[in-house]
């Protein structure tokens, strides 16, 4: 049971290392980015409003919903039409006898429009609350996302307009659970961001204070792994090498195989080198 898990872990670690660039290339790329910034480059213009992932999901949803409505519409119309034709046949027959055949034709037309009114409601009922549809997304993955994406300059809400009515329905149940989990996560992330920013700004003691606050409030929080890694790195930055080494050990034993490990090790090494260099 645990052997395949270990195999997986080992394979993923190799993969992680193999799928990035080497340090020289990374440095070169950063230099290129900074040069571009100095040259005034601002990067490609992107859509501002929606996160694209949500957008993609929504697009899929919309297409799904649109498809459902279409099917429901056609289905409902066909059924009603059939019923009416059968009925109408009788009625028409009856009316033919009474000499008013046009009534039957009119009846069909009326029911046709009646079906149209009824159909969206039915479609909405048939729309499952969970858009499991996405599971089958490979049918049109990028192809759907790309047309929706046309960037800021040309705001064409054309594909958006059609299936908009049933939109709120599938959206509401999705938003709620994410939001509730996201609330505490957002707070945790704010605290982490503070710590990270302090570390980046060369204020490791502020970073450590922020991390301590996080540890007190969310001892086993979602970001505990990040916290331990950051703590070790902040201690390194503060020059408290022994405490840093202890924190790093705690981090590794709590999160073996963590992707943050490389950064922690690098920080320890840098700290050690600095000490050698200084003395």
């Amino acid at each position, binding site marked *: 049971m645990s052997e395949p898990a270990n195999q997986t872990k080992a394979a993923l670690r*190799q993969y992680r290392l193999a799928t*990035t*660039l080497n340090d020289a290339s990374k440095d070169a790329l950063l*230099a290129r*980015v900074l*040069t571009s910034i100095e040259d005034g480059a601002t990067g490609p213009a992107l859509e501002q409003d929606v996160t694209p992932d949500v957008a993609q999901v929504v697009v899929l949803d919309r297409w799904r919903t649109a498809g459902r409505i279409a099917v429901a519409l056609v289905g409902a119309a066909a059924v009603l039409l059939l019923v009416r034709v059968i009925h109408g046949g009788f009625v028409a027959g009856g009316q033919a006898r009474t000499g008013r055949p046009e009534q039957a034709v009119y009846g069909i037309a009326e029911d046709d429009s009646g079906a149209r009114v009824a159909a969206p409601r039915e479609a909405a009922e048939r729309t499952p609350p969970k858009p499991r549809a996405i599971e089958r997304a490979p049918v049109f993955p990028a192809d759907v996302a790309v047309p929706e994406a046309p960037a800021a300059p040309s705001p064409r809400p054309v594909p958006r307009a059609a299936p908009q009515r049933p939109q709120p329905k599938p959206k509401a149940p999705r938003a709620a659970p*994410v939001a509730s989990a996201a609330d505490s996560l957002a707070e945790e992330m704010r605290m982490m961001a503070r710590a990270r920013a302090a570390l980046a700004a060369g204020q490791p003691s502020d970073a450590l204070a922020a991390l301590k606050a996080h540890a007190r409030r969310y001892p086993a929080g979602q970001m505990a792994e990040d916290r331990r890694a950051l703590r070790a790195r902040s201690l390194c930055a503060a020059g408290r090498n022994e405490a840093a080494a202890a924190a790093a050990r705690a981090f590794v034993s709590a999160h073996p195989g963590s992707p943050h490990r490389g950064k922690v090790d690098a920080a320890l090494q840098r700290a050690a080198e600095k000490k050698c260099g200084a003395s």
Partner: protein
Amino acid sequence: MGAPEARIHRPSESTPHRRQIRAVTSSAPILADVYREHIDFVIRTTRHLGVPESSVEDVVHDIFLVVHRRLEDYDGRSTMRSWLYGIARRVVLHHKRGFSRARAREAQAPVPPPQLDAEETVARRQAAETVRNCLGMLDPEQRMVFVLADIEGMSAPEIAQALGVKLNTVYSRLRLGRKKFERALARRNQADQGGTVR
């Protein structure tokens, strides 16, 4: 310590030294910090989003230009990685519009093409290749969740935020993805060991 020159060379002309970068980045410390902290994640994510090998560096370059432009808008409501994922996704989308249809579809193929360090061992290369193939067995949604969770080490709520899906969806995709991945890996390992099991 004194950096000889604050100007940086074009990377195509020479490989810049770390010290030079440090000198320059003092004017943009935050971007450089984000870069150092997350460059691996961004590179891999770019690959996982299906960018062909030849374009990876260009796309990453553009991603960080956008990061620089938007950095002050980052409000900490999502993790940096979720935020970066959103930017990466959009930049990739932007680039894909530039690719031809066929190439874009090719790029959608699950396998990020190999990009290997010179000093890389054969073993690592093989292991990475195996993982690539196994990742190819997963559905795209499962794959992205699996990759973000088990390769990038993101937490489930973080992934939910990055992808804009429900937490439960993340968990179920992850469960399925892991199962499929482990099965695929076990099958390959058996085959590699010359087992007769097919």
